[in-house]
């Protein structure tokens, strides 16, 4: 039968999950975001342990390594880095977020409380040069969590880029139960580029993944400038059930 996730969500949540304060947040419009996305194929033997039973791995398994700088937001500028496992919730493509490093304490707290982001404070560096776009993520303890590059920048259209929605494992403040919060951002592209992906360093432990997160093979890299709307929460899922049975609509 088809593969599905087999993560120990309680153990994983103890390492990464934050409290989400209800599902009533208003949207945030974040203008002029710079987004570096690198896609790598992940190790197929370990990826099922990196997603809850709610989800199924994409075949082949792949990860989305994302670093974004938001020059303006309701809590000031901030940068965020995420590793997402490319998966399916039911039949829909979704990225399960392992952990998010944010370089602004207030932003980290707000993102968790509003959308259930599994945030941790760290240093997040993103810089576009003429020949490459470089990203580096450092944990609060000073460990190098991720270092990656897009090489040989080449213009494409924003319409060529396909981003997918995120799934955040969080703890609901009201009843302390674990929940998966789905976030469906909207993107309006101003600029899009593509290039060769180059992973320089990846520390699996730093993403709460033990030794299971292994980037095996490069797929693609893109760099965009766009306006991002973090929308209202529409769906949440039970992390102990598959998405067909365990999805609840919380807003239209």
């Amino acid at each position, binding site marked *: *039968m*088809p*593969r599905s996730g087999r993560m120990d969500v309680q153990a994983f949540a103890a390492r990464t999950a934050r409290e989400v304060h209800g599902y009533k947040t208003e949207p945030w419009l974040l203008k002029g975001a710079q987004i570096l996305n690198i*896609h790598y*194929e992940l190790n197929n033997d370990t990826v099922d342990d990196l997603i809850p039973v709610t989800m*199924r*791995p*994409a*075949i*082949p398994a*792949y990860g989305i390594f994302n670093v974004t700088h938001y020059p303006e937001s309701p809590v000031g500028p901030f940068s965020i880095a995420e590793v997402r496992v*490319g998966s*399916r919730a*039911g*039949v*829909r*493509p979704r990225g399960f977020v392992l952990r998010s490093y944010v370089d602004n304490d207030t932003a980290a707290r707000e993102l968790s409380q509003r959308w259930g982001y599994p945030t941790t404070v760290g240093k997040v560096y993103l810089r576009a040069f003429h020949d490459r776009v470089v990203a580096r993520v450092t944990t609060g303890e000073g460990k190098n969590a991720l270092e990656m590059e897009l090489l040989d920048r080449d213009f*494409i*259209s924003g*319409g*060529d*880029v*396909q981003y*997918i929605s995120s799934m955040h494992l969080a703890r609901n403040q009201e009843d302390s139960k674990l929940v998966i919060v789905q976030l469906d951002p909207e993107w309006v592209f101003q600029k*899009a580029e*593509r290039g060769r992906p180059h992973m320089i360093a990846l520390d699996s432990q730093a993403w709460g993944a033990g030794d299971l997160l292994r980037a095996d*093979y490069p*797929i*693609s890299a*893109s760099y965009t400038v766009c306006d991002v709307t973090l929308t209202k929460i529409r769906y949440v899922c039970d992390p102990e059930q598959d998405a067909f049975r365990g999805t609840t609509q919380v807003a239209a």
Partner: protein
Amino acid sequence: MMKFGIFYEISVPRPWERETEKRVFDNCLEQVALADELGFDSVWCVEHHFLEEYSHCSAPEIFLTAAAMKTKKMRVGHGIVICVPEFNHPIKIAERTATMDIISGGRLEVGTGRSATWNELGGFRANPDETKKTWDEFVRCLPKMWMQERFGYQGRSWSMPVRAIIPKPYQKPHPPMWVAVTSPGTEIDAAERGLGSLGLTFGSFHEQEEKVKSYRRIIANCEPVGGFVNDKVSTVNFLFTHEDTEIGNKVGRRLLGTFNFLAAQLLACREAYPTKSYPSLGLLPALRREASGPGDDGGVPEGIAIGDPERVLRACKKWEACGVDRVNFLLNALETVPQEQVLNSLRVFAKHVMPHFQDSTSQAAAAGGGR
């Protein structure tokens, strides 16, 4: 007169024990033999690689050769052969297909296409930006390789000095050629080149009707790449029918659901690799949409050939009214429908539905055919 074919992905459930894969291939070939007896017009199979459980049909030329050996009348069709050099060298395509045409006694149809998943493109290290271009180059070369005694070429994606590419096809000037139509606008590509439209998705009846009209208008003034124009339109559908309405709906819905679930897990090129070359997510999501679209009272999406024979007949009549020449049916996914039920469904279709689309001679054959 509309014709009916059967269409194979060859879906194999885990665990992949030695006997599991053999049983699925054996089942498919048994279905092919019965379909030939019952008056189905053609058998088609895909070329897919690395699509775990969804499709284990990576060597379609072998499967189709076996199908040709087990049948007398059915045409055998590549649906499709991938025209990307990392997958198939064009000389090998010309040689293989000519051999298949000879062995099948001139029953080969050659569908062409380019693959749409990262599983496959990445697996063969093919450049997604190039596939539409190499497909175009291949389809212009293939007819010449079949028709000319000797052929030489200096092109963009491949070249060769003058050689005799042998054998030559049994059908003259060559087998009918088709294009897999999944991305929007590919039906125009097909029409402009005088190639059949091998629709692997169909959208709504209205959408299909418009596409067929547009295809027929353009192909009337086409510049054919081959020795003749193949102006036919095929589409793909699911088939499960049973005299008992409840069984027809229930088992059929299970087939749709299983297919939908399986196809969703694969990685469409566009999801992982930003490129203009794949403006849509391709075949799989489109088929999924159709398989999970708004249903009727029995929960079956409009236009899907699932349910009792009366319902299936109504769906097929609508496709005929849209101008479709042939419907190719997918019969199973993950062996979710037991083999006996698949065979029975083919018999029920031949007995109750097919006669409404045949001339009097064929009707008599269909009524008496089968076991």
